[in-house]
């Protein structure tokens, strides 16, 4: 699985960047930029703009999400912000407020 895990008691206020999978069980505020997948687990709280390839959200995200591949909002997640990706999945039970943009022509 992922190399990088931000545990549940961890709070990061700043920027995270990298090219490997990232699992967030704790809190991240600021900005996340990854070339791979981001997993916001149920305990995870993200108040950040997110730029990734894939993102799975089971926790809470406040901020705009831009994925080059796919965004998946799982049941019980809470997302406030705009989502932009070629593929977007919103599960039954997910709570989401924001715009969806699946029109990913180069911009």
């Amino acid at each position: 699985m992922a190399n990088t895990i931000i545990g549940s008691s961890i709070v990061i206020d700043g920027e995270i960047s990298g090219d490997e999978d990232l699992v967030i069980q704790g809190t991240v505020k600021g900005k996340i930029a990854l070339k791979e997948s981001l997993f916001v687990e149920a305990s995870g709280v993200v108040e950040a703009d997110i730029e990734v390839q894939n993102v799975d959200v089971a926790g809470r995200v406040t901020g705009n999400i831009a994925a080059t591949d796919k965004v998946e909002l799982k049941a019980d997640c809470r997302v406030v912000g705009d989502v932009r990706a070629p593929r977007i999945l919103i599960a039954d039970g997910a709570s989401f407020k924001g715009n969806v943009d699946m029109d990913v022509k180069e911009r």
Partner: protein
Amino acid sequence: MVATKEFSTVGPDSTVIGPSILISGKLTGDEDLTVRGRVEGELNLSKTLIIETSGVVKANVSVRNAIVSGVVVGNVVATESVELTREGRMVGDIRSPRVIIVDGASFRGRIDMGNAEPRPQAERPATRPVVRPAAVRPATLPARPAPQAAPARVMAPAKPQPPPVARVEARPEPRVEAKPAPPPPPPQPVLVGEAGKKKVLVKKKK
């Protein structure tokens, strides 16, 4: 403490910063943190920070324990201990009651271990709070209060397996991997027969 490799097999709930990850900003937490990538800014942990050989921390660090096998640029305040392993490199100041610098590590900066700590030779190792490989000084603890008891305990089971012996001496810590540097006492039977103090002397002379 020394067996850094032990720590790298961290449990699922502890935090790992992978080798390609850069975090810049402020990181706080109440769990162990292993850094294989890069952290810049400020780092506050109530537990142990492990910086592996690929890890780079350019931050002011405040932790309970720090084990540095990678690079640190910044000041480190640790409430318990700081250890620079053979591959550790650090530029900055350290404030901690225990500081260990292993041969091979490089360091530039100030070290403040404080003077408040009373230091009667005999009591010191016993009162030390931090986890440590128990095999390091097996005879020290029992040797002082009851010098007679020490040889028996050490000699009997020590030859096959030093670490379990140490465990007998009521050290609860689970990390009982042998420290590489100090050899277990049994090979020097003469000295083991004496109180612990002598043995320490010999180790230095080698």
